[in-house]
């Protein structure tokens, strides 16, 4: 069935045909025809944000917590450029997004027209793919292709730039099943020969470890299920990157906690000393490897990743397996079982005994206080009081983010939304809005630093307008804490511009928006205050005044190997050496 309709109507029709329920957007001259179509229907809900960056992060939160692509609609010029940070964030964290931008009419493109920007040029390096649509007849097919590309293979953001005359003109609508998408079909099944080599290695390894990442979450719920089955059946220890938390449950008996720069001592030492490392959907990020030359020097490394460019990028894989996590793990589990479920039990007992020794260091230990709220304590209480609930956690970027990763436990995938690759301050609040929209009944908490939170605070208007009861849990140290920590370690305690003198009164700020504000300064009041926050049916801004000079440990100083980790009682002044100083 082919149908004639305007480009603007095609956009709405294609979104419906793709099963889109929510669009995050902000109107302007170059997208008015599309907004007019949105006005005349009820199937697709449009959420009016307060800044285009907020729209993109909200769509990321929606996407990460549902596994579905997030959709964004913004105008040309400043609308598009405001979206760029969010799009780049989604690219680095492999989040599927479809971003629609308005553009000046085709006959004015290139004339420095009002609100013209070369959106396709600007976003070429920060999208998985992008299109400038020049004919209405091609629009529908491109829209369907965009959804296909965003969600297939390694997910990522795509952008479609639609000139205003293309929106007004009439063309023929193409249905999803008629759109040509065959050319882009990344391989899902892994090479059986490589999988066999992996299984052989698993059977004999003395010190194996699973190193899992965001790719397990990207692959879908079946991947997490298979990972759990494999870990429990083999008895191997498992650690995860920041992006993969929840794929294996924090309460699982083989869980070592997060690895990396601020990861757990036992996880990092196990990575350093293992003889078989099985990387499942992680990308050997520099927060993980530290000094590459010293990274896990004695291990054979298997690497399962859907993107061939992730393999051998920084760390050489001895057993590379290109494919989708769920597909590959299915084969691994089946083959390992059919070969008799062999593992090197005696060696594992010794391996676990060493791991237990490392755990005794109790690397998350901190100096408790009866008078000041320690940020770690605040998170321990938040965990205790919200555990077991239908809970989603977002974060901003900084120390609070790392403490949240260390002190909160994630039992299921898609429950943890954080900006890992780009490290975008201002991500968490809008992301929490997107999550709450997708899960209206759930408890959605954004663990924030006051610095980050202020970067997209205007979204409180959105939360209030749509009655989204998101809880903004600010660990307020009145410092750009992570920057301050690095200045302690690297710059002789010269705190150049890492604190803000004029912070707002967060309670009044909340009230000004029509939300609830809570302030807590005393550890003795904390539990009640958190319970008030949870009980309130509406957005809450929780200003938790915490210790101002706490450092986040453990920490592997940049440029150092895993076994050179700083622990809480370490002497930290200028702990980062000359070669590490140039690294970020």
């Amino acid at each position, binding site marked *: 069935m082919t149908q004639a309709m305007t480009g603007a109507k095609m956009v709405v029709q294609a979104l419906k045909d793709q099963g889109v329920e929510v669009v995050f957007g902000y109107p302007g001259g170059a997208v008015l025809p599309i907004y007019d179509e949105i006005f005349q229907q009820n199937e697709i809900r449009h959420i009016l944000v307060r800044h285009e960056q907020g729209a993109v992060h909200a769509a990321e939160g929606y996407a990460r917590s549902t596994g579905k692509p997030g959709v964004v609609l913004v105008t040309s010029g400043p609308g598009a450029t405001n979206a760029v940070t969010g799009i780049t964030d989604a690219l680095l964290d492999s989040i599927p997004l479809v971003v629609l931008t308005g553009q000046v009419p085709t006959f004015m493109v290139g004339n420095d027209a009002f609100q013209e920007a070369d959106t*396709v*040029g600007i976003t*070429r*390096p920060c999208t*998985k*793919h*992008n299109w*400038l649509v020049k004919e209405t007849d091609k629009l529908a097919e491109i829209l369907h292709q965009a959804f296909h*590309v965003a969600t297939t293979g*390694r997910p990522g953001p795509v952008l479609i730039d639609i000139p205003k005359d293309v929106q007004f003109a009439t063309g023929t609508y193409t249905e999803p099943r008629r759109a040509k998408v065959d*050319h*882009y079909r990344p391989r899902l099944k892994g*090479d059986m*020969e*490589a999988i066999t*080599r992996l299984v*052989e*290695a698993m059977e*004999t*390894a*003395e010190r194996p470890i699973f190193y899992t990442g965001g790719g397990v979450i990207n692959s879908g719920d079946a991947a997490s299920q298979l990972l759990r089955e494999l870990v429990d059946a083999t008895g191997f220890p498992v650690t995860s990157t920041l992006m993969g938390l929840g794929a294996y449950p924090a309460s699982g008996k083989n869980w070592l906690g997060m690895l990396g720069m601020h990861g757990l001592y036992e996880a990092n030492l196990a990575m350093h000393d293992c*003889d*078989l490392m099985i990387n499942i959907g992680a990308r050997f990020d520099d927060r993980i490897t530290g000094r590459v030359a010293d990274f896990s020097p*004695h291990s*054979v490394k298997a690497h399962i990743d859907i*993107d*061939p*460019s992730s*393999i*051998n*990028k920084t760390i*050489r*894989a*001895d*057993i*590379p397996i*290109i494919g989708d996590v769920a597909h590959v793990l299915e084969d691994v589990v089946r083959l390992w079982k059919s070969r008799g479920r062999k593992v*090197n039990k005696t*060696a594992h007992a010794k391996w676990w005994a060493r791991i237990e020794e490392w755990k005794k260091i109790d690397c998350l230990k901190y100096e408790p206080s009866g008078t000041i709220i320690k940020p770690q304590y605040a998170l321990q209480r938040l965990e205790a009081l919200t555990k077991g609930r239908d809970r989603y956690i977002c974060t901003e970027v900084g120390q609070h983010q790392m403490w949240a990763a260390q002190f909160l436990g994630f039992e299921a995938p898609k429950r943890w939304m954080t900006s890992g690759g780009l490290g975008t301050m201002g991500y968490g609040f809008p992301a929490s809005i997107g999550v709450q929209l997708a899960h209206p009944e759930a408890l959605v908490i954004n663990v924030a630093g006051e610095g980050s939170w202020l970067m997209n605070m205007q979204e409180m208007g959105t939360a209030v307008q749509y009655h989204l009861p998101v809880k903004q849990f600010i660990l307020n140290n009145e410092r750009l804490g992570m920057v301050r920590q690095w200045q302690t370690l690297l710059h002789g305690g010269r705190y150049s511009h890492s604190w803000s003198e004029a912070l707002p009164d967060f309670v009044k700020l909340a009230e000004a928006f029509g939300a609830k504000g809570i302030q807590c300064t005393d550890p003795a009041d904390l539990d009640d205050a958190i319970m008030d926050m949870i009980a309130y049916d509406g957005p809450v801004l929780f200003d938790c005044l915490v210790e101002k000079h706490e450092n986040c440990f453990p920490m592997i100083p940049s440029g150092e190997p895993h076994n050179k980790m700083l622990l809480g009682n370490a002497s930290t002044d200028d702990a980062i050496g000359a070669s590490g100083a140039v690294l970020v």
Partner: protein
Amino acid sequence: MAALNIEKGTSRHSAYDLRDPNAETIETHTLAVLVDNEAGVLARVIGLFSGRGYNIDSLTVAEVDHEGHTSRITIVTTGTAAVIEQIKAQLGRIVPVHEVHDLTTEGPSVERELALFKVAGKGEKRVEAMRLADIFRANVVDSTLESFVFEITGTPGKIDAFADLMRPLGLREMARTGVAALSRGA
């Protein structure tokens, strides 16, 4: 380690099975990239090289299949084995890229480049330029009493050599197309 009988550095998916992955030797490779002939595709490829700090020694592009809207981009690049492998993987993930071939490792191939040389001079020098052009099988495509434009086809090395010879004989301008390359055999 003893318990594992896996050889290190034996990744099968790459052309570098037997090479030392950590070798720092710089290699030159010719890549043939088949792409959809759509707006911006060249910008994507060039943006990849500049954005990730890879080298481009030569780049040519033209449509090769009008019906199928496909173009062939030939890129000559340099880097360590690991960098070349990354370049190929990164090219492969560009959505409109269909195929990436490393002509340097996928068996024997032929490479040709076309160049135009404008050489001006009189007397002895003019005669000598003409004589050398003949040896190099360059064609004269324009001539005045005081100048020639030579057209020459060959490997980049042959063209470099011709340029070196023409310089003292009055080389004024030179235009090169960059390398086009195909694998040998069927």
